[in-house]
């Protein structure tokens, strides 16, 4: 099969392509037949609530978890037969850190780089570069164990880049990072994208997904429920604006029946009502005209959060 093996520039293959991909654990299907295609150079997102099957999908792509059914190609190769060759060219940030906490920051990077067969001199230099990136240079020779959770996360992310991967798999990369570190990472991921590194990211954070992803899929219960760019999804599944109404505790019950017809669509959350309309201001006036008096109101643009709510009936915000 001539198309197998190393990337052939004249006949470019998708970085990842899955068809009817299934992952079963015992009886339950964590991934229940999904089709995905990730193209070279794009940032692709998996969005979904807990247990949607995001990590299971990521682990299949990372060639550490065999698929139960369906087809999967990563970098044009089959994970089943070419696992080590694929793994040599990708970088993985697992959902849970698995650093060697008994070693130093520097040793973690160097030792890990050596597993990719990189020369000692190369990993020495690379470790210095990556510690600067992760802003851990001043902790270079400290043991990892006592570092803060965010620092460990940064080190895990830095470690995933030790082999200059073509494809980076980031499973909830920014959980546990403070806003500053999060923005730093977003900036760095953007840079990597400019350099042509393909990225696959899972997240619960809608803002992060909107910032980072060119294209994303929303997963729920092991299935893909929608696919598109963030703005495309918002356009398809939500209105331009959202009006949020908050009532005094205990006063929300029954209010929706008085205003529901003013909006294209509505959602009732435990602490507020959401009215979807293209003109939030006009809707608010109409609400007031009916004599409904919320304690506070907010008009905002639709986000992926609203798309998600529409598609799964559940809120992603924990």
């Amino acid at each position, binding site marked *: 099969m001539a198309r197998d093996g190393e990337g052939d520039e004249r006949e470019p293959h998708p970085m990842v392509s899955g068809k009817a991909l299934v992952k079963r*654990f015992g009886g339950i299907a964590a991934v229940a037949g999904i089709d995905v295609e990730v193209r070279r150079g794009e940032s692709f997102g998996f969005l979904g609530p807990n247990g949607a099957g995001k990590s299971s999908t990521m682990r299949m792509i*990372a060639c*550490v*978890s*065999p698929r139960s059914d369906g087809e999967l190609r990563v970098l044009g190769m089959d994970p089943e037969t070419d*696992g*080590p*060759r694929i*793994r*040599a060219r990708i970088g*993985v940030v*697992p959902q*849970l850190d*698995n*650093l*060697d*906490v*008994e*070693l*130093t920051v520097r*040793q973690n990077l*160097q*030792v*890990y780089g*050596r*597993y*990719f*067969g990189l020369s000692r001199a190369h990993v020495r230099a690379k470790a210095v570069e990556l510690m600067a990136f992760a802003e851990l240079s001043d902790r270079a020779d400290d043991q990892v164990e006592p570092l803060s959770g965010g620092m460990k996360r940064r080190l895990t992310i830095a470690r995933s880049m030790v*082999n200059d991967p073509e494809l980076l798999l980031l499973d909830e990369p920014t959980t546990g990072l403070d806003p500053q570190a999060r923005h730093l990472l977003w900036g760095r991921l953007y840079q990597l994208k400019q350099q042509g590194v393909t990225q696959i990211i899972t997240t619960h954070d809608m803002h992060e997904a909107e910032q980072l992803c060119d294209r994303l899929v929303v997963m729920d219960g092991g299935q893909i429920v929608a696919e598109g760019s963030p703005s495309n999804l918002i356009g398809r599944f939500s209105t331009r604006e959202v009006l949020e109404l908050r009532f005094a505790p205990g006063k929300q019950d029954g209010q929706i029946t008085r205003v529901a017809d003013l909006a294209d669509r509505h959602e009732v959350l435990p602490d507020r009502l959401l009215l979807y309309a293209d003109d939030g201001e006009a809707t608010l006036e109409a609400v007031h005209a009916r004599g409904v008096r919320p304690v506070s109101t907010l008009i905002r643009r639709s986000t992926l959060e609203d798309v998600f709510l529409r598609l799964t009936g559940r809120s992603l915000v924990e």
Partner: protein
Amino acid sequence: MWLRVEGHWAWYRRYWRSSLYSSGIEPLLFLAAMGLGFGSQVEAGAATGGHEYLHYVAPALLVAGATMSGMGESSFPVLSGFKWQKDYIAVTATPITPGQLLGGQMLWLAIRLGLSGVIYGLVALTFGAWLRPGAVLVVGVGVVTGLACAAPVMALAAATYDEGRRFVVMFRFVMVPMMLFSATFFPIEQIPIGLRWLTWISPLWHGNEIARAAALGGSDPLAIAGHGAFLLALLVAGVLLARKLFYRRLVV
């Protein structure tokens, strides 16, 4: 596989003191207590093959030490790689396969057992514990016996999903009896006939027999070959089982 050993080496450079203490110095303390202290009360006689007790016990203590640290190193530390520290999961996300990971673990253990054995041997030499040059082979016997006992424990670790209580049970009901009934401190003839089967199935006994043959001389080559075959069979079976379970644990 070798790269994995390098990773362990990075760890060892930081922690060699405490680890050397437990695997190398401990058997020496035993040797001092049993060989020199207790041994001074024991007369050379038929039971010790006509040898002084120090000469009788020194090779067996090396092998017993290697067995203990081989089993110890393969229990909680290996389980941690899967469960707590999860560094095995990190390693198998690289081009390294679970089989190579296991190989690296075994190789690293062999190096450490060898190193501890050499140190033990040299210090024991200053006690005058060795009678003939053949005693250098005892280090190799220790390594092989230690690995043969370690491999099944690694397999057990790979199949352990709880907090590892079974290791405590294993130490208590497998390792300790093995120490006592493997003709480490006294010859097999002293063991009640009804319990002797325990000795026969004990890898440590087979190791001890070869080690004594090397250190003291004068034994049946056929018997030695038999003991060696037992250890190699255990080693091969253990590695194959561990390999299977490493894959089962890491490729899910």
